[in-house]
């Protein structure tokens, strides 16, 4: 894909091509059996898998086991990964499936599909428990906690993803491929609207 038309966009998007190429070469190295490349992959992608696991509502200790298990599972199934691009979606899918399995095994009830547009009853540490002195960030957290479940789930995961991986991420989150764009747009619009009402928030 070409990226020249995105040249004006700042942040991770502008960095994507470099990361992308590096990731592709690392995945090829891993598929060829190179341990250093596997190490690099673990370092690069564990933060994303952590969010995928945590976005299911599963507790942190269980998520540690789930994410590790996903990496070990990859070792056994590396012959299923034919292209570097497929790897991220594959890992995210395995991670989410395992997290949901453990969550259900713990006797927790997942929200019904109709409730996915409601705010999450408990979506993380309350503001007063946060060791965050930055008022601006506290304002963002207040708003994120009030977002609909589906938005919290999606935004925290794609915040750690590259755009070319969105299709794989959508599949991992059980969202139709075509709905991730509209959903992201809707969630970001909602987030922006709610931030406007936050006096501690300022647009930089």
């Amino acid at each position, binding site marked *: 894909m070409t990226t020249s038309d995105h040249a004006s966009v700042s942040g991770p998007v502008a960095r994507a091509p470099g990361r992308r190429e590096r990731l592709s070469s690392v995945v090829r190295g891993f598929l060829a059996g190179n341990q250093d490349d596997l190490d690099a992959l673990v370092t690069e992608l564990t933060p994303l898998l952590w969010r995928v696991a945590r976005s299911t509502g599963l507790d942190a200790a269980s998520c540690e086991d789930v994410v590790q298990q996903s990496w070990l599972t990859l070792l056994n199934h590396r012959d299923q990964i034919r292209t570097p691009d497929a790897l991220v979606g594959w890992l995210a899918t395995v991670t989410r499936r395992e997290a949901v399995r453990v969550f259900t095994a713990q006797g927790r009830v997942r929200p019904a599909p109709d409730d996915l547009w409601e705010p999450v009853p408990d979506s993380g540490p309350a503001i007063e428990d946060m060791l965050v002195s930055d008022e601006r960030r506290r304002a963002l957290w207040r708003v994120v906690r009030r977002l609909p479940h589906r938005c919290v789930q999606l935004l925290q995961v*794609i915040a750690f993803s590259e755009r070319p991986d969105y299709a794989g991420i959508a599949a991992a989150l059980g969202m139709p491929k075509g709905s991730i764009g509209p959903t992201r747009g809707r969630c970001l619009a909602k987030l922006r609207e709610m931030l406007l009402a936050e006096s501690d928030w300022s647009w930089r």
Partner: protein
Amino acid sequence: MNPTAADDPMDDLDQAIMDEVAELYRTVDPVPGDLVDRIRFAVSFGDLDAELMRLVEQTVYAGVRGAEHSKIFTFSSTLVTLTIRAVGLTDDTVRVDGWLAPPAAHRVSVRFGADRVERTADEDGRFVVEQMPAGVAQLIVRMVNETRPTRNVLATPAVVL
């Protein structure tokens, strides 16, 4: 072109917000400090075709009134279940008792750091590591008399003993 396709560019503001959301999550719910290292250790045992055991249960008993703290882990695979109990001996060493079911005299390696100890289970499937460092460890089971041509090596996830 569909204006809401998944790979549509976001505007600068949306992108800036996504960057802040990422930063927010790194602050409020970071990847636990040792997780990446633990995973790198777990995937470094060198046999990519080993069957991975799943951690199915772990129980931690805190040491009360002078009793040692202990941890029990149960791992399962298609053919073998492995249970280990790690009992704290000193601040930084543990004793490990293991049971394999069904019982068999399999070879067991316990990896820690760059080191490992090797044991052969007795015919009841039991093995003991009298003393080893506390901390991150992984167990590798090499099955004897296993007729499968491959996957006769089993590896657990890395756990903190």
